């Protein structure tokens, strides 16, 4: 089978990269910037990348590291908020609940440190084992586990019902 052309790679993997970037970044504008930057990098190394078994995995690694080291311009400084001006979700039977849950989760994710966010996305969306996550992030598997545990703990704290005030003096 011939090596894929860069255009073929983008056509097949591009949407997946963009969705992955969206989860990492929390908004589409930054996600598209990340994908753009990643594709430029991949393109510059395409001769080598196209011979890899999984060019997309390499692109995701580049994208993840870009995200972790992203220096934002002052004009687009991130301001995590629990009330995200999100795009409308497609209509669904449980639209209200689903939308509220998504917004809540998105807001919580956005508030997490980037490494925790990246680990959670890789683990719970990409279904990667910790060893692979560690390889993507350039850390050890145990560090990746700690990031995941801390991230989940932070989400759990928000999910937990407020302590009852009964009996309080």
């Amino acid at each position, binding site marked *: 089978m011939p090596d894929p052309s860069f255009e073929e790679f983008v056509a097949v993997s591009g949407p997946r990269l963009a969705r*992955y970037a969206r989860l990492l970044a929390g908004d589409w504008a930054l996600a598209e910037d990340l994908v753009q930057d990643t594709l430029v990098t991949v393109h510059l190394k395409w001769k080598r990348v196209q011979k890899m078994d999984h060019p997309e995995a390499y692109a995701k690694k580049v994208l993840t590291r870009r995200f972790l080291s992203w220096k934002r311009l002052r004009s687009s400084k991130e301001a995590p908020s629990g009330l995200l001006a999100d795009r409308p979700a497609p209509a669904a039977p449980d639209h209200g609940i689903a939308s509220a849950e998504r917004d809540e989760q998105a807001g919580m994710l956005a508030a997490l440190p980037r490494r925790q966010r990246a680990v959670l996305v890789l683990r719970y969306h990409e279904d990667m084992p910790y060893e692979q996550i560690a390889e993507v992030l350039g850390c050890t598997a145990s560090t990746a586990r700690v990031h995941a545990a801390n991230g989940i703990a932070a989400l759990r704290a928000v999910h937990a019902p407020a302590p009852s005030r009964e009996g309080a003096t």
Partner: protein
Amino acid sequence: MTDPVEESLRRSLARQAAERDPVIDLGAVLARSARRRRTRRAAAGVALACAAGLGGTVVPSLLNPEPRPETLAENPVPSVAEDPKRLQRRVLAAVGNDGRLVGSPTSVGPGVIGLSEAGPLLAGRARRAGTAVVIDVPREGGATWTMSVGAQTLDRPPSEAEARALGSARASSPNARPIAEQLLPGGGRALAYGQPQGVLGVAVLPGGVLATADIATGARPVPTPEMASLALRVLRALEPDGSGSP
């Protein structure tokens, strides 16, 4: 037993990922054959900016030109016809409305394009350019249409003979000037990217209104928020004071 927080997280991530079709095709338009890395990166950045200007509907051939027979028949460009790859070895140049070359995009950062200083090397590269690339950066108000074709800077669209000599099949489009003026009725800034198949113009008018035009055909793609954001960042990067350096 499934952890409800983890399950909720999985569902949330899946929903976020499926929110909309991503604007893609970005990389499909990279100018692949530029010889030098920095030129290639710059070409990619401008290409991507313009790709976004099309609202996500990218025509791959737009920036990876395969000369169309009908285009060549209309405007024969022998050197291109003999060697289509030459078309891809483009050089980008930016000019101010005072007619001076301000620089060449050299690097692509997060949404911005760095500019080199104009110098003899750039002029030499520009002279060898197979395709004219136009970036108009008015420094003061007033409608302007400054075109850099190779090392020459013209205050008018080049004649067909000039365009042909420079290997740009469409630079002589008679539509170019009126559309540019239409886009810039009271000043503002414009970014245009020249290709054999057409020139896409992106203009930011006073007050932040964004307008677009395919200068060759007169088509007016509808600006998208992404396009507005990208165009503004690109144009900021082209500010003559260098404030947009990545």
